[in-house]
């Protein structure tokens, strides 16, 4: 039973205020958002920071929902249910973090997309957003292809990412989006 204390200690050390592991649906998205919002409200955070964190959370959660439904069909519930979502809060930042399995053949495209986003400044991201929204169609999964761009814009910092090896078919895609806390 030591892992209970270990997990608690990890959460304290990493300053995690919310961790959710399990099945991701629109319903769980709404519940997580409601919980995180209560937390932000009770800590009297600046409203602009609150809005940005909320924004990033929605895109991050809906990304997982979309991908886990797709992966779930292909790989069964084991894959679809093994995603994680967490938020940490430090003096300077909120960090929205996600982890979910992706097929290895999606990895390269994802790396290219994220590196491209990280190479852009504020105006570059704005142009990209406008370009995509003008020309894209909503995919079968319901995405507009704008989620990462929007997260990068709301964050104002580089998107951090890492791929951990799961098995020969899947990697675990870890994403960390930092949102600076406004101090006035």
């Amino acid at each position, binding site marked *: 039973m030591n892992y209970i204390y270990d997990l608690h200690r990890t959460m304290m050390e990493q300053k995690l205020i919310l961790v959710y592991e399990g099945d991701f649906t*629109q319903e769980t998205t*709404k519940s997580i958002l*409601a919980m995180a919002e209560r937390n932000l409200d009770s800590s009297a955070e600046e*409203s*602009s920071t609150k*809005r*940005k964190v*909320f*924004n990033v959370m*929605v*895109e991050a959660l*809906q990304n997982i*929902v979309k991908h886990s439904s797709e992966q779930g069909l292909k790989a069964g519930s084991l894959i679809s249910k093994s995603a994680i979502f967490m938020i940490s809060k430090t003096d300077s930042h909120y960090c929205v973090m996600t982890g979910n399995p992706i097929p290895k053949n999606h990895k390269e495209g994802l790396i290219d997309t994220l590196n491209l986003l990280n190479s852009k400044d504020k105006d570059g991201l*704005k142009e990209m*957003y*406008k370009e995509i*929204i*003008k020309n*894209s169609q*909503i995919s079968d999964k*319901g*995405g*507009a292809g*704008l*989620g990462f*761009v*929007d997260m990068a814009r*709301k964050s104002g910092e580089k998107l951090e990412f890492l791929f951990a090896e799961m098995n020969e078919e899947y990697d675990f895609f870890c994403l960390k989006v930092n949102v600076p806390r406004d101090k006035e």
Partner: protein
Amino acid sequence: MDILNLEGAEDTPKIILDKKNGIFEISGRSLPEDSAEFYRPVLEWIEAYQASPNATTEFVFKLEYFNTASSKLILDVLSALEDVKGIKVIWCFHEDDEDMEEAGEEFSELVEIPFEFKTY
């Protein structure tokens, strides 16, 4: 013409499209699971309205938050409104919500419709 009246929910906006009383408004939060499905009746309503619109139409957006999938559909709504004679968009945002102000500015650059910006 029938009134389109959708009650808002925690993840969908409140929508009223009422030709007779001249009320055209989308407000609240928009992060539906399927944005294309959610906005379909709105787009259909506007398409029907294009045939015989009021002399002037002030279409109000008063959104607190929308996700990226909704932003694509909001652009579709605005594109449909381009074909309405006498159209004007009233883009409302909370006075300290710069992101919502900027979002409105970006939309105004993407369509040929006069925008008026208002804070609340």
